[in-house]
């Protein structure tokens, strides 16, 4: 049984604009896709879902055309369904376990989740009932999925919640990282709006650790603090020539494009970006593919992703890999940059590479890439984006006495409560796990909110 195909923007239009690629199911398509579900007695999909959404139940409602009930089922466990439906790596989670996937196509659970969430957005989000005010205030640092989820939950519990965000717009990676063509900013804004309607105060332009410290937040009367500052520090290759003009970290490239809307420069945005004819993106994750697809849309004639392992080990979502191939992005596997050459005015002109081969599996279980001696070669380039991972920002650990961090710089927490080594300071999301997923960040936000409730209200 084939899944109902997801309608997409025509290819010619896609490669020139930042409009969303996947258009979403119509009601008829959603009902048809939902009707394929076997309603398994022991649904494996639910086991694959990090927040345990009752997937067969919501799908059953969709099949019956009862979208209202379907939304309620999803919302019970997932507070950001319009976002998760679009960006979760479903193939490793629910859909990867779906019974139908063994012989045919798994149900498009992500597509259906998105359908019900979009249906709800169109109707207008209803604000759930809140508990009686507790008279206690909680501060949340960072407004990515972890921070937003915790804030929403805490507000529902009756706490006064203030979110502090360093940038001028809330949303974390959802706003500054994931491009419009994959996650429209209007969807993120709607979710942020929902959190605000719950009574949460989001204060942008506040860098905790600089503008105000965690210690001072307690002095101001907050009784608990949830740190959800993400993994925002870009890793570089540390090879010669990496500071040449035209070489961007993926974070800079994507912040300019998504947060600062440089793709509208100069007519509707003042922030420039520069993409030449030949763009090279280094990496193999979602971040690399997002950067490559942005480069293409900004006019690169040839966009090539170079990755040191093979297609099989690439951590990017499969759907986006397929989209990237369709759009004409090229891939060079088993390739590692070892340096960059520039021209006399300091602009990058070439990437120096070596070929790799795969050795024994490493800690991540993936086969370790090993350089092949004497295999040096060069690729011409006038724009390079380095997308080889992000690390936790050390700002808060550096300015908070007693806050323990791991060797990798992630904040150490009690896995049960998410409390850090500082009393009443909790942490979750990428700042604890290292770069991970939206859904795991969301789950952490929920967990921390519950622990905070327990600590402050005793239940």
């Amino acid at each position, binding site marked *: 049984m084939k899944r109902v195909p997801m309608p997409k923007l025509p290819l010619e239009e896609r490669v020139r604009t930042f409009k969303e690629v996947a258009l979403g199911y119509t009601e008829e398509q959603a009902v048809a896709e939902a009707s394929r579900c076997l309603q398994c007695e022991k649904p494996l999909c639910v086991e694959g879902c990090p927040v345990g959404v009752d997937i067969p139940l919501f799908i059953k409602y969709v099949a019956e055309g009862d979208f209202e009930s379907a939304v309620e089922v999803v919302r019970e466990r997932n507070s950001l369904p319009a976002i998760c439906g679009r960006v979760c790596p479903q193939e490793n989670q629910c859909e990867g376990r779906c019974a139908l996937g063994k012989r045919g196509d798994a149900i498009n659970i992500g597509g259906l989740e998105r359908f019900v969430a979009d249906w709800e957005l169109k109707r207008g989000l209803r604000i759930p009932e809140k508990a009686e005010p507790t008279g206690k205030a909680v501060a949340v640092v960072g407004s990515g999925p972890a921070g937003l989820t915790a804030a929403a939950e805490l507000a529902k519990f009756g706490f006064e919640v203030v979110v502090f965000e360093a940038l001028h717009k809330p949303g974390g990676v959802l706003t500054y990282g994931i491009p419009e063509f994959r996650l429209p900013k209007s969807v993120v804004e709607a979710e942020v709006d929902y959190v605000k309607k719950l009574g949460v105060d989001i204060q942008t332009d506040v860098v905790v650790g600089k*503008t105000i410290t965690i210690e001072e937040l307690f002095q101001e009367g907050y009784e608990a603090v949830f740190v959800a500052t993400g993994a925002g520090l870009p890793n570089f290759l540390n090879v010669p020539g990496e500071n040449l003009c035209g070489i961007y970290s993926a974070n800079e490239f994507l*912040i300019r494009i998504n947060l600062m809307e440089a793709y509208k420069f100069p007519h509707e945005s003042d922030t420039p970006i*520069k993409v030449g004819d030949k763009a090279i993106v280094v990496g193999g994750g979602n971040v690399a593919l997002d950067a490559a697809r942005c480069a293409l849309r900004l006019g690169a004639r040839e966009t090539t992703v170079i990755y040191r392992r093979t297609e099989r080990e690439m951590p990017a979502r499969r759907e986006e890999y397929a989209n990237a191939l369709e759009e004409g992005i090229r891939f060079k596997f088993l390739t590692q940059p070892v340096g960059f050459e520039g021209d006399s005015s300091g602009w990058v002109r070439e990437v120096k590479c070596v070929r790799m081969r795969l050795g024994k599996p490493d800690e991540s279980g993936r086969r370790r890439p090993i350089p092949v001696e004497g295999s040096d070669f060069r690729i011409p380039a006038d724009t390079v984006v380095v997308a080889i991972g992000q690390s936790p920002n050390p700002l808060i650990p550096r300015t908070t006495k007693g806050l323990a961090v791991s060797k990798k710089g992630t904040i150490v927490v009690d896995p049960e409560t998410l409390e850090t080594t500082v009393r009443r300071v909790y942490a979750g999301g990428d700042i604890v796990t290292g770069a991970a997923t939206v859904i795991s960040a969301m789950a952490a936000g929920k967990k921390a909110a519950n622990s905070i409730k327990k600590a402050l209200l005793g239940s």
Partner: protein
Amino acid sequence: MLLESIAPRIHQLVVHAPLIAKKARPGQFVILRADARGERIPLTLCDWSSRDGWVKMIFQEVGVTTKKLASLKPGEFVEDIVGPLGTPAEIAQYGTVCVVGGGVGAAAAYPRAKSLKQAGNEVVAIIGARSSEYVILEESFKGVCDELFIATDDGSRGFKGFVSQLLEKLLEEGKRFNYVFAAGPVPMMRAVAEVTKPYGIKTVVSLNPIMVDGTGMCGSCRVTVGGVRRFCCVDGPEFDAHQVDFSELMSRLSMYVEEEGRALALYEGASFDEG
């Protein structure tokens, strides 16, 4: 928001920002946006009052954002201001120090002169400009310095020549400094570093690479200091002048000249149409 022109195309901007004013230290800066479509640009904190909750920046009109800031009307707001960013300056008692400010760099030099004076140093300041009408903060410097020298490129005020040449002259005449701080255009900071190097004087410069977030998230502001990559917005903006790769900084600063030119032409065309 209060805006005042203090020299041709140089303005002083005072913003009510109590949280920033409370935390501000010499050597730090803010990032601001002029309007909702605006770029994020860094400006040095020139002065502030933690009691009254204001911060003061001095900027020169060079492109779209600074021109937009310059056209703010009384009572209007800047869209965003975030800070204080960067690592506060190391202020110690060195003995006799020289603080050098080239052009609008005087705005960064002033809080350093003030704090060095408060720390018990003998402070000599050199401020320079293209010509006399561009000299800024003269009175403020007088209030915190033991000696003030002025240099202008055209000789219309004080020494005729660059601030670095004046510094060199003072050193040649036998003046001795235990510490030099310089802020201004990159060629000027490089020249100061070259002048002090043979004398082995500890020299610190405040670097001005292109920034975006200002919190260590993007790496746009990366500079090479002593062969090591540093993020100017969090590790700086002040670095040991004798270790800085100034050529790299110069070339990175020119990354968008073409785009900036186009944006400016468009903006000036549009404001011309309106006006």
